[in-house]
Structure formats: structure tokens, C-alpha cells
């Protein structure tokens, strides 16, 4: 096997983990609250700026800055739900889409106003792992490992705890949650915090690989949505599978063609797959 192709595949696996983490957060929100946070990637951007400022500008140690970013984006998730989503929970999906879409532009413009359009780097350069001729960046390996741990933690939480069980149950029958003694509103707020926290976690990993700028969300927001739809919106396992498929297409396509064409290829594959299976890989 071509050694560079193998490297591309391995990088694809690493990238897949990160995309899976992004898709998990978005799918969790959709599955529980039945709302699409179109501005999800912009929440990640907020997290990346938080780390940049805390670490690169104010010299806060990276792990501390990372925790702060996760907490801040979790709080943003709660505020987003409380201020924007809650008043329009019962309205048409298109209105909810427009509202969170509005927040997307607001966050982009606000970031431009505050931070200008400069590309900023957090200034941490992790070395690469060399396995023979294969080069794997530690930033990618770390991102993959942390994404995996994050996904496993989410799985255990959803499978083992009362709250997690309620979060899985709520989309199966919203109305009777109250009869179980569950306060639906509280579940929504907690889910929003977890979804935000996952976006914050993704920000910690992305900031090690990419510069942050106000439009950084555009480079992984659309693909995250594509993955969620491909996996079956709201289906977490489908999302993870789709993330790894898309990451491989981008990685191998990038190696065989070019990085630009690889995304074109990914979207092409998406269009074909969604025509064949409109409900997504594991959708109903």
C-alpha cells in the first residue's frame, strides 16, 4: 500500500473523531429539543477566541484556558436556549432556523467588530509522531483521543444516569415526561449546556490545529450539518459513522486530487447518498 495514502487514511481517522464530536453536540440538541442550532460552529469559534485570548494574550496556562472555554460555551448554549429558542419552541421549524441563523451572523459580525478579520494563532505547536515515513501531528492524535473520550463520556452519561435516560426518553414522548416527574424545561437547559460544552471541547481541539478568525465556523460548520443529515438528524451513532465516512472522503480525496477538490467530492458524495437514502444512514 502507498505509504502516503496510509498517512492520509490515518489523518482521516483522526479528523473523523473531531467531526464526530462536533456532530454529537448538534445531534444531541436536535434529538432532544428538536431545534437545529445553525450557529453551532460559531459557538465553537467563540470557544476558540476564548482560548486564544486567555492563553496567547493573557498567558493563562492552556488547560485552564480550555476549561474556561468549555464552561463559557456551555453557558452560551444555555443563554441561546433561554433567550432565543425557548420563546419560539412551538413555532415553525423555519422560524427557529432563521433565529439561530440570525445568531450565526451576529456572532460572526460581533467577532469581526471585536477582533477584526485577522487570523490568530494560539501559538502552541505540538510536534509530530514519526512512524517510519508516516507523519502524524500530535495535535491531531490528541484531538482524536480527546474526542473519543468525550464521546465515551457522553455515551456513559446517556446510558447510565437518570438524567441521561430522561434525555433519551424525551424525544420518544415529550408530553408524558411530566408524568414521570421530569421538568422538561430543565432537561432542555441541561441539554443546551451539554451541547454548548461539547462545542467548547471541540474548540479546545481545533484551536491547536487551526487559526481562529471570525469566519472559521464556515470551514467546519457546513460539513458538520452534512454529517448530521447524512447520519440521520438526531441519530448519534449515525452521526459518528457519517463523520468517519466524510473524513475519509476528504482525506483520501485531498491526497488523490487536492484539498479544495476533496470538499467538492465530499459534498458530491453527500448529494448522491442523500438522494439514495433521504432519511440518512440510520434515520427512520
Amino acid at each position, binding site marked *: 500500500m502507498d505509504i502516503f495514502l496510509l498517512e492520509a487514511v490515518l489523518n482521516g481517522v483522526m479528523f473523523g473523531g473531531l467531526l464526530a464530536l462536533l456532530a454529537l453536540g448538534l445531534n444531541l440538541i436536535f434529538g432532544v429539543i428538536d431545534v437545529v442550532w445553525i450557529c453551532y460552529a460559531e459557538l465553537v469559534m467563540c470557544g476558540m477566541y476564548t482560548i486564544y485570548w486567555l492563553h496567547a494574550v493573557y498567558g493563562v496556562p492552556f488547560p485552564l484556558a480550555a476549561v474556561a472555554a468549555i464552561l463559557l460555551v456551555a453557558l452560551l448554549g444555555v443563554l441561546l436556549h433561554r433567550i432565543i429558542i425557548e420563546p419560539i419552541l412551538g413555532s415553525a421549524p423555519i422560524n427557529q432556523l432563521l433565529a439561530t441563523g440570525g445568531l450565526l451572523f451576529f456572532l460572526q459580525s460581533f467577532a469581526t467588530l471585536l477582533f477584526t478579520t485577522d487570523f490568530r494563532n494560539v501559538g502552541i505547536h505540538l510536534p509530530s509522531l514519526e512512524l517510519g515515513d508516516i507523519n502524524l501531528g500530535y495535535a491531531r492524535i490528541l484531538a482524536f483521543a480527546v474526542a473519543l473520550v468525550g464521546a465515551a463520556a457522553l455515551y456513559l452519561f446517556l446510558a447510565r444516569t*437518570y438524567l441521561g*435516560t*430522561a434525555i*433519551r*426518553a424525551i424525544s*420518544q*414522548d415529550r*408530553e*408524558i*415526561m*411530566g*408524568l*414521570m*416527574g*421530569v*421538568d*422538561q424545561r430543565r432537561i432542555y437547559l441541561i441539554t443546551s449546556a451539554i451541547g454548548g460544552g461539547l462545542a467548547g471541547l471541540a474548540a479546545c481541539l481545533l484551536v491547536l490545529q487551526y487559526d481562529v478568525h471570525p469566519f472559521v465556523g464556515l470551514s467546519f460548520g457546513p460539513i458538520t450539518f452534512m454529517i448530521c443529515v447524512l447520519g440521520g438528524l438526531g441519530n448519534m451513532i449515525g452521526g459518528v459513522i457519517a463523520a468517519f465516512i466524510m473524513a475519509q472522503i476528504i482525506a483520501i480525496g485531498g491526497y488523490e486530487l487536492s484539498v479544495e477538490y476533496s470538499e467538492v467530492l465530499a459534498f458530491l458524495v453527500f448529494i448522491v447518498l442523500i438522494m439514495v437514502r433521504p432519511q440518512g444512514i440510520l434515520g427512520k
Partner: protein
Amino acid sequence: MLEVTGLSADYGSFRALFEVSLGVEAGETVAVIGPNGAGKTTLMRVISGLLPPHSGTLAFEGRSLAGLEAHRIVEAGIAHVPENRRLFPRLTVEENLRMGAYMSSARARFVERRGWVYALFPRLEERRNQLAGTLSGGEQQMCAIARALMSEPRLLLLDEPSAGLAPLVVQQVFDLVRRIREEGFTVLIVEQNVRQVLELVDRAYLLEAGRIALGGTADELKRSDTVRRSYLGL
């Protein structure tokens, strides 16, 4: 124990209950019978807080339930087994029971309650890891009742537990309700299966077109001309 006074409620833009008053004493089993669309389910939904009443009062153990949301009413001690069972189909039997014990007071005693419920319904223990959606109709009804019992209610509301079940299974469900009654629970049951439910309960109310048409002991209702003619086919 439960005191409903002058209760009116709407179903959409349509008035479903008109000044309904009824009471349930501790330890009693009381039925609300009546035809389809009489407002029986609406009554249950108002008591458990799923539907806010238009007017009238509800009191449980002397305490007003006015303005309480459904999850607070469960905490007060009323569990509602809704019409059509409404299990979480993609959760296992045991996860459904876990949901029934969601309140902090019930969580602390989950293992003990689960043991008690499994002793009452051994079939559920056999099927504990099966998805609830794959159970038979009768088993689903068992699971729905078991789930409600997990919250240690003092009053159990049963909405049409025999609906949609085969005649043999209907008999099993009524046996089940009889056992729950013997366990000392106070039960308010809504049924269309008038003949069988009147064999089971202490008292009953006849609800027609949103109004209480008749109320009395089970024997009195069995002897009443209205019930005999319209509901027992005698």
C-alpha cells in the same frame, strides 16, 4: 383524598368537562365510566396536570393542586398511567421503570421498588432488558402500571387499561388492577369496559357529554336503569 369540585375544562376550543365534581377516599377504588368522547380522558389529564382546567378546584390530601405542573403533581403523590400506555418504546423495560422513579425521593429507593414491582409482575423481570416497544399489549400495560408504581404514588390514575387488548388479556389486566387494589393503593380508573370494571370497584361515576350523570356504589350503578340499558345491554 382527591376532591374535584366544579371542574370545567376545554379540549382545544371545545368544552369537554362541565362543572364536574367527584371525590375519592383513601383506600377506595373508584371508576369513571361513560361512552367515547364523554371527557373521561380529559378528566384524568386535568387531575395529573397535563391539561390546565378552565375553572374549578382540585385538592389532594387537603392540598390544592391549582397551577401545579405535571411533574409537581407526581411529587405530590399522584401517578397517571395514560391512555394507550405511552411507554418509551426505544428504552428497555428497566429503563422505563427508571423513568418512573425519576423523582429524587423515588431514586433513592429504586432498587427496593424495582424488586417489589418485579415480584408483582414477574413477567417484566424476564423481559427487563427488552425494548418496551417489542412487548405484547398486555405486557406493555403491565410495564406502564409498573412504571407508575415506581414513584410510590398514593393515588393511581388508570386511563382505559384494557383498551386495544384481546379479551383474554383484558381479563389479565383487570386481575392486575385487582392485585394493585389489594396492595392498598387508592385507584381512580377510567373504563369503557363497564361490566368488568363494576365488578372491581367500590364506587363509580357515570360521565356523559362532559357531565356527571350518575354516581354511587358499584352495586347501585349495576342496578340503575341507565347503566343497564346503555352500558350493560340488559
